[in-house]
């Protein structure tokens, strides 16, 4: 029976691989998601068949657990707004982290049920795996809670810099290593909870100094951590599905973090050390000067775009905040009726999590084959009549190419400056999160459209309809 179960766990692991594989194209993605669901069902049924509930109490707990959790999960999935996906994902990460801690805890208090020894005499290897799983799980838990609070605006996005934070972190890290060693040698329950406590504190301290705009990296990183925590528990349980999944999720999160770091031209280490955004912004606001910009009206914008041949729309986080995606699609539809070619250009770090803009545009019924990644569309700006930048700033700033002293120097940018006319939809003249002035605002072929992104687009739509 145990062997058959192991093979079934392997099957569910393979189905999880297929689930990720399906995401290589939108047409195969839904099939992939179904594979994932089947894999999960197989893993759950196999576990229940292998160890059916031992008592009536266990049975009731099972039904209650699935009922409460499943109901809450389904409710969240149905209700969440797409702009709030980053928060939801951070919240989900925290749950995986806490679940890993709890499962490691139950393995410690009921080693026989997990087949890893008897109380007081748990296999040494299991102790290590368990403590690592619990430690990473605890860091993921508190880290994700902080990320959630920052993304949801319940906590200031500004980096919070404690004095001596690096020293504190190193001390905590050393303490953690010591506790794990002690736990390995003694198997003491007290040390296990000490490991958990220290890791919880580390999770908070690691994420608190990271600024709101670095959140795409943080969310991806926590995604990766939740995978490694699951893998740690998988080793404890000797469960194939869990080991494979942990490895998949761990590497997936790591790759996404890498892509996000590259999109900002920042090293992973510098993001983790934190502090970006806060200080720089203060410096930049000091040297702000009043320079003339060309301000346009909705009618001007409508007229220029309707007479264009090709318009490329560059959406950023500001569009998401203003919920302007639906109005934007309406505008694109009107343009297409006039025979204008409309495309969307997405910067890798637009939004608060990887791929966030794509989901928002898809939600507004923008076909995915009109939406392009930076490297696929960047050469086309030279042939475009209008680049319509809405709620984005730093990702279009040519200083990233020319100004070596700029904090965003080296970051890949969208070459909107090459378009005949550049329109910026912005609330005001404030600089982006990096605190850098954008020279493009002052150019002759730039037109500024000030106001709330949604209202501006709506008035452009109205002007076009005339």
């Amino acid at each position, binding site marked *: 029976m145990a062997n058959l179960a192991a093979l079934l766990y392997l099957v569910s692991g393979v189905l999880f691989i297929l689930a990720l594989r399906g995401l290589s194209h939108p047409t195969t993605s*839904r099939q992939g998601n179904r594979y994932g669901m089947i894999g999960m069902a197989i893993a759950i049924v196999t576990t229940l068949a292998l160890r059916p509930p031992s008592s009536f109490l266990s049975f009731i707990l099972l039904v209650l657990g699935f009922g*409460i959790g499943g109901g809450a999960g389904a409710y969240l999935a149905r209700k969440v707004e797409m702009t709030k996906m980053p928060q939801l994902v951070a919240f989900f990460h925290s749950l995986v982290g806490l679940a890993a801690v709890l499962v490691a805890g139950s393995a410690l208090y009921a080693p026989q049920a997990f087949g890893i020894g008897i*109380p007081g005499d748990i296999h040494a290897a299991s102790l290590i795996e368990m403590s690592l799983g619990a430690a990473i799980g605890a860091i993921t838990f508190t880290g994700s809670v902080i990320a959630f609070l920052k993304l949801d605006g319940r906590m200031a996005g500004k980096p919070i810099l404690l004095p001596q934070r690096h020293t504190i972190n190193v001390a905590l890290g050393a303490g953690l290593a010591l506790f794990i060693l002690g736990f390995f040698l003694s198997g003491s329950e007290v040390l296990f909870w000490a490991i958990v406590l220290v890791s919880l504190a580390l999770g908070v301290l690691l994420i608190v100094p990271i600024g709101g705009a670095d959140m795409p990296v943080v969310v991806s990183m926590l995604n990766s951590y939740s995978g490694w925590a699951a893998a740690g528990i998988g080793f404890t349980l000797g469960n194939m599905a869990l080991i*494979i999944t942990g490895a*998949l999720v761990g590497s997936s999160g790591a790759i996404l973090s890498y892509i996000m770091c590259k999109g900002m031209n920042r090293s992973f280490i510098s993001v983790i050390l934190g502090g970006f955004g806060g200080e720089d912004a203060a410096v930049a606001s000091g040297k702000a000067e009043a320079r003339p910009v060309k301000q346009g009206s909705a009618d001007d914008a409508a007229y220029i775009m309707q007479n264009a041949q090709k318009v490329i729309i560059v959406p950023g986080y500001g569009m998401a905040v203003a919920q302007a995606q639906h109005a934007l699609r309406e505008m694109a539809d009107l343009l297409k009726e006039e025979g204008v070619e409309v495309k969307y250009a997405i910067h890798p770090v637009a939004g608060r999590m990887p791929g966030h803009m794509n989901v928002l545009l898809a939600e507004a019924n923008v076909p995915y084959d009109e939406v392009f990644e930076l490297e696929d569309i960047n050469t086309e700006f030279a042939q475009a009549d209008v680049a319509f930048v809405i709620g984005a700033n730093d990702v279009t700033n040519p200083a990233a190419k020319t100004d070596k002293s700029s904090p965003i120097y080296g970051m890949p940018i969208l070459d909107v400056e090459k378009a005949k006319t550049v329109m910026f939809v912005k609330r005001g003249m404030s600089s982006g999160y990096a605190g850098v002035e954008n020279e493009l605002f002052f150019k002759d072929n730039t037109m500024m459209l000030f106001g709330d992104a949604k209202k501006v687009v709506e008035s452009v739509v109205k002007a076009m309809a005339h």
Partner: protein
Amino acid sequence: MSSDPQSVAEHAQTAAQALRSAADAAQNYADQMAATAHAVSGGAIDPFIFRLAIFVLAVFVGYYVVWSVTPALHTPLMSVTNAISSVIVVGALLAVGVDLVNSEGSGWAQAFGFFALILASVNIFGGFLVTERMLAMYKKKG
């Protein structure tokens, strides 16, 4: 096909028996395979090594599979990895099923397991359903 209840019941019974024997056969094969694997390894290699091998290979599989994911689907990628990492629920199920009467472990284990089960279920249902909801929005032109 006749529709009287008795023959339906008989059909169901034969089907159940066939399924049962298929399961038995599968189990036999699995046992044989395991025995062969055990014999090949001489029974000397610690199971940890096998687990580590699977883990390392899965990291590589993950690396290549994730690089092939289109950037447009990176958000669904995160929500689906979230959902599948909740396979940690198997640990929670083992903990909830702890046999307290035969003192397999303390009630703490069961309590932790129950809490973990709730958290993992939120993730399983929430993760897969929200991914499904997002993927349904991706449409082609026209």
